[in-house]
């Protein structure tokens, strides 16, 4: 909730309007669920907690996504560079974070930092940074998604049809202009389906931060179960939440794809050119 808390404390709009509105909304729904499902229903009574958990999940996803994407482009370019000083570190970093499980990375950074807390304290990296589970979670997710996103971008760039690059060079484009006008836009369109998978994967992967004390949707689910012992219903409900949000993300990307590929849509049959090869 760190980002939201930050917004809350500094922007009056959030404090006065959004937060009470959200609280009021979830209380209303919770009241409705409790009267519908009864006083003892695990989901009804704890609905607002689930909403908070879902909020933290989305917050973590968005934060890691935005930072990850910003970092992935330079890393991808470094990976494609001919300069070995850029290529090999990028390759090594991507190889490590794609070749090891996310769970291991999370434990490594969070508890590993704990093992070295005296040294980190000395370097001023402890308080506010590695001390906080939120920071460790975001750091791990960013490192992980940057590596995967850089690989996707690299694949996109390398699959830009050579003909287009040739034509651009023939027109006299080179360097940054070439990248900006020709390569990157095309690469983005090629990479979009793969990237949508990465976004959904990241969203689902946030469920792992529950193992380092953060109360995301999965963390809240485990908490509610330990309170009420209603294992099956709570997990099914949590699963449905993840399903619903995952498909919203897929749907958003489908719309984005359709928008970006408008110029590549097939014409209706009646207008098909007679001599078209495809």
């Amino acid at each position, binding site marked *: 909730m760190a980002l939201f808390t930050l917004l809350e404390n500094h922007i009056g709009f959030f404090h006065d309007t959004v937060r009470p509105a959200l609280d009021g909304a979830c209380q209303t729904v919770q009241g409705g669920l409790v009267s519908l499902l009864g006083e003892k229903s695990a989901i009804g009574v704890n609905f607002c907690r689930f909403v908070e958990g879902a909020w933290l999940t989305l917050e973590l996803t968005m934060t890691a996504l935005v930072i990850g994407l910003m970092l992935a482009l330079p890393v991808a370019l470094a990976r494609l560079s001919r300069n070995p000083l850029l290529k090999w570190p990028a390759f090594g970093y991507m190889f490590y974070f794609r070749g090891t499980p996310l769970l291991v990375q999370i434990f490594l950074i969070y*508890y590993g*930092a704990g093992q070295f807390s005296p040294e980190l304290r000395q370097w001023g990296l402890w308080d506010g940074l590695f001390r906080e589970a939120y920071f460790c979670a975001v750091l791990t997710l960013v490192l992980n998604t940057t590596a995967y996103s850089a690989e996707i971008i690299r694949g996109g760039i390398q699959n830009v049809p050579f003909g287009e690059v040739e034509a651009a060079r023939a027109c006299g484009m080179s360097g940054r202009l070439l990248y900006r006008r020709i390569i990157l836009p095309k690469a983005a369109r090629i990479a979009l389906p793969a990237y949508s998978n990465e976004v959904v994967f990241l969203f689902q992967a946030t469920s792992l931060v529950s193992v380092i004390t953060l109360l995301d949707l999965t963390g809240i689910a485990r908490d509610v179960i*330990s309170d009420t012992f209603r294992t099956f219903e709570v997990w099914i409900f949590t699963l449905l939440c993840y399903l619903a949000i995952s498909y919203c993300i897929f749907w958003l990307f489908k719309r984005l794809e359709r928008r970006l590929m408008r110029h590549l849509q097939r014409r209706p049959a009646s207008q098909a050119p007679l001599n078209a090869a495809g």
Partner: protein
Amino acid sequence: MKIVKILAGAALALVVAAGAAQSGEMRKVKIGTEGAYPPFNSIDTSGKLVGFDIDIANALCKAANFECEFVVQDWDGIIPALQAKKYDAIIASMSITDKRKEVVDFTGKYYNTPAKFIGAAGATYDFTYDTGLAGVKIGVQGSTIHEDFARAKWPKAEVVTYATQDEANADLASGRLDLVMADSVALDEGFLKTDGGKGFTFLGDNYNDPKYHGNGAGIAIRKGEQDLVDAFNKAIQQIRADGTYKAINDKYFAYDVYGSES
């Protein structure tokens, strides 16, 4: 006549054998434990389960004539796994509380020690209920009486839950937490007396509120298996009476952990 004698002898032998098999047949009982709560239950360097709970469990099984097998299970899912019949009894320092009694049955206690805080030596905190420990980070293991107690008595504190006691202790040692609350013996033997526990000490009082801490640690059994509950209760009384309990107690602790007979 000879044939009758042979047949009679065979029949007799069969009856004896059947009788012997019957009396030698032990009930198989699977026991769930955590394996991450020294000195009560933990896993040693060779991968074996060791600890007070384990020794007590073995003694009880011997007394009740059970053939016991241990199953390691994380604390989070220890009751759901019991309900899923992955084992038949939980012997893992689980306190007998009303909340748990709603879903499982308990035997009588087999030990009862108070809960305490640990924190950095020399630190002072305001431990008054309801208003104290404002903004203080308290680490507890999730799904425990200590979590419920901390949340109820110090609502202004920030209670952080961990999957295992060790993880909470690790975060206390690294400075992410100000205090950790758990069973005083587990904290003493499992943390304070180890290398990692240097510079930390007990703070505050002994806490033993029956509403939250229940009546000590007991054996949890699925509802509807009263015979198993009775068998274990009988076994507990037996090992208390014949000195086995004392022997195990003294092996681990310099004081009596059973507490008062109640």
